């Protein structure tokens, strides 16, 4: 929990479900991935293993094992995770996650169910998932519905009596549509509801206080106990005449905390040299701050709800990335159909418009420079199909 910006834990089910298509079961494959994130004063790394296997013609099972090992620094004044602030304390965390999914194919309909369990020293999450997908119109259209239910327990290190619940519900609907012989459309809508202890038990907000030497005091943040968000996205993928693909997408998000966000993404995929495939991508994201967010409140307990999480601030995020894939020969291994080695790198920059960098000691609180996060995201993985 204390890692604040650690990787969202539910990688597993997303990975397990992302390949689901109605009418066809996902390929039998195994992926072994090593991931590393470094930026903002923290390093997160670990493995992710995905195994998928069909049982007969109508059932497919998959399992995912995922680990985050986190090393970082946290500001002892505000609880914020920032790089090497004076007075920062170093911490280490370890999180383990297991996920399973079963897909059942019946005619042109695929039914899926899954479960994820995630544990770390101060956060426990259990998530269940159900979905159904249907092919129609000569397999030009695939429609899917999904429902997710999660039950979490928030803990606090050093306080064994602290155990606050969080309940999560998500509804998803998706459509994949063949538009032309070279053009695919994907559309997704998702509504999410969360209820319970939604803030971080360690992080503090700051407020003006002339009695303090640095000009501001701190108090624990306080969030609303409910949050409802709606997201809608459109994605187009086009096959170019020289065997390459262009991928563009847009997403609009809004929620009851006042956040409105826009996401745009563009990617280009180019096979080359018989066994290689290269992908380049760019992503742009921008959001307005939550209604109860402030970098510096005017006084203690200024409002009912108080937040200084930079995830809730106004900012722009830009990332550039590339992936190189090499398909290695598998003809000496009789049970393998295909194998790839993949190296992926993304560079992320987040520029905040109302979150200030407290490493600069300002004469007047609120005049510090705005914070900028730079991060590198590295992935190396091997995939085999059998």
């Amino acid at each position, binding site marked *: 929990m204390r890692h604040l910006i650690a*990787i969202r834990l*539910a990688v*597993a089910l997303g990975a397990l479900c992302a390949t689901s298509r109605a009418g066809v079961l996902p390929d039998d494959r195994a992926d072994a991935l090593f*991931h590393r994130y470094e930026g903002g004063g923290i390093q997160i790394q670990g493995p992710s293993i995905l195994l998928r296997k069909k049982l007969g013609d109508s059932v497919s099972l998959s399992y995912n094992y995922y680990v985050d090992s986190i090393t970082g620094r946290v500001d002892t004044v505000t609880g914020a995770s920032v790089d090497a602030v004076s007075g920062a304390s170093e911490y280490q965390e370890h999180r383990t996650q297991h996920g399973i999914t079963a897909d059942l194919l019946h005619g042109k309909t695929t039914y899926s169910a899954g479960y994820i369990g995630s544990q770390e020293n101060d956060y426990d999450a259990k998530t269940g998932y159900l979905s159904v997908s249907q092919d129609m119109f000569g397999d030009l259209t695939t429609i899917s519905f999904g429902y997710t239910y999660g039950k979490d327990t928030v803990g606090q290190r050093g306080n064994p009596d602290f155990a606050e619940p969080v309940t999560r519900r998500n509804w998803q609907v*998706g459509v994949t549509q063949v538009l032309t012989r070279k053009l695919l459309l994907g559309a997704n*809508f998702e509504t999410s509801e969360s209820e319970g202890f939604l803030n971080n038990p360690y992080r503090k907000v700051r407020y003006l206080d002339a009695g303090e030497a640095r000009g501001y005091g701190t108090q624990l943040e306080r969030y609303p106990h409910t949050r409802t968000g709606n997201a809608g996205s459109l994605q187009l993928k086009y096959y170019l005449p020289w065997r390459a693909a262009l991928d563009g997408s847009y997403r609009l998000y809004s929620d009851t905390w006042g956040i409105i966000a826009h996401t745009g993404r563009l990617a280009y995929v180019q096979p080359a040299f018989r066994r290689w495939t290269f992908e380049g991508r760019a992503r742009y994201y921008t959001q307005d701050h939550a209604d109860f967010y402030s970098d510096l409140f005017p006084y203690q307990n200024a409002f009912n709800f108080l937040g200084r999480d930079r995830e809730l601030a106004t900012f722009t995020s830009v990332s550039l990335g590339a992936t190189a894939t090499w398909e290695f020969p598998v003809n000496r291994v009789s049970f393998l159909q295909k194998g790839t080695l993949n190296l992926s790198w993304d560079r*992320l920059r987040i520029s905040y418009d109302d979150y200030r960098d407290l490493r600069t000691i300002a004469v007047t609180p609120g005049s510090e420079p705005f914070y900028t996060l730079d991060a590198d995201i590295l992935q190396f993985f091997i995939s085999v199909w059998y």
Partner: protein
Amino acid sequence: MTMPRTRSTRTWLALMLATATLPLTGCGSIEPWVKPYEREHLADPIMSFAPNPVSSSYLDHVLESREGARGATGSVGGGCGCN
């Protein structure tokens, strides 16, 4: 425990349902305009929306854990202590 639902949520749910069921109307009268033998390009692995689900899900969640927006990425997430 019953979760409180806003009017906005109900509207979105209704919209999602309506959008998803719209193509069901008049099923029998629609002829596939891209025949199976014309889908060679669409079947190419480079046209997959998620050719490497482990990788794309990981990247999605790295980004989402630093941003306020979430969802509608085509994959499903669970809970975490990353707030």
